[in-house]
């Protein structure tokens, strides 16, 4: 009886764990898909360049670029925007934070609005 109960509990635990894992995987897949769509809001992506733009969480937006320069060097630039009630802070490649100008903030807002519009159309199909 005790063994049967333990097996039931274990199978429930495994079932729950795999359910959480599935959800976590789906969440990550959705974010990756959104990031690819987000990369297109700035116009055509030049060949050999990887561009992603996405909402990491409600306070954070990420813009990621990868390309190869004239000397054949692989370059990576990750820009992270932290949204605060009294402004927006930006950090590039994990360096120190700096305040963004109103002009850059306006551009970020426009990009974010286009991103939302596109992901609604292409993933969630709400629009």
């Amino acid at each position, binding site marked *: 009886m005790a063994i049967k109960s333990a097996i039931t509990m274990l199978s429930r635990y495994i079932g729950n764990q795999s359910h959480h894992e599935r*959800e976590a995987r789906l969440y990550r897949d959705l974010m990756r898909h959104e990031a690819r769509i987000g990369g297109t809001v700035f116009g055509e992506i030049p060949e050999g360049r990887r561009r992603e733009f996405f909402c990491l969480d409600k306070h954070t937006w990420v813009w990621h670029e990868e390309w190869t320069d004239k000397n054949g060097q692989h370059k990576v630039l990750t820009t992270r925007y932290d949204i605060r009630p009294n402004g*927006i802070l930006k950090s590039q490649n994990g360096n120190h934070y700096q305040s963004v100008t109103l002009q850059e903030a306006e551009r970020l*807002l426009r990009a*974010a609005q286009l991103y939302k519009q596109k992901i609604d159309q292409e993933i*969630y199909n709400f629009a």
Partner: protein
Amino acid sequence: MNDQNLEVLRKERPAPVEQRDAESREAIVLLESAVRFLRHKEGSLKPTPKLPIDSTDHKYSALHTHSAVVTEDQDAEPGIAENNGPAISDQATPTAETASRASDSVISTIEQQIDDIFASQTIPEKNPLEGVL
């Protein structure tokens, strides 16, 4: 993620779909609020245009009041700004309506001044220019 998977997600709407949708929607609201704050801040830092009148004159207090609102908002708590975003933005950037209210006030002050001048003067019984012409 292929089209078939997306179709299933749209129909079933599992928790991660709801979560991502809610997060991105909320993120846009917060970003809009931050941009509104920056617009307001930028607007309030612009120099106030000089008026063709003596601004120290107490009679033009209506205009002073308008400027004071803008200056005070500069030090407003971020939370307050967030909650009253649109209202503060409207104050920071004088609209045609607020500008019109200000000029109405100036006009009525001037009208009052003219009334006061006439009220203080004794009207001559006879036109002083009569007989000269």
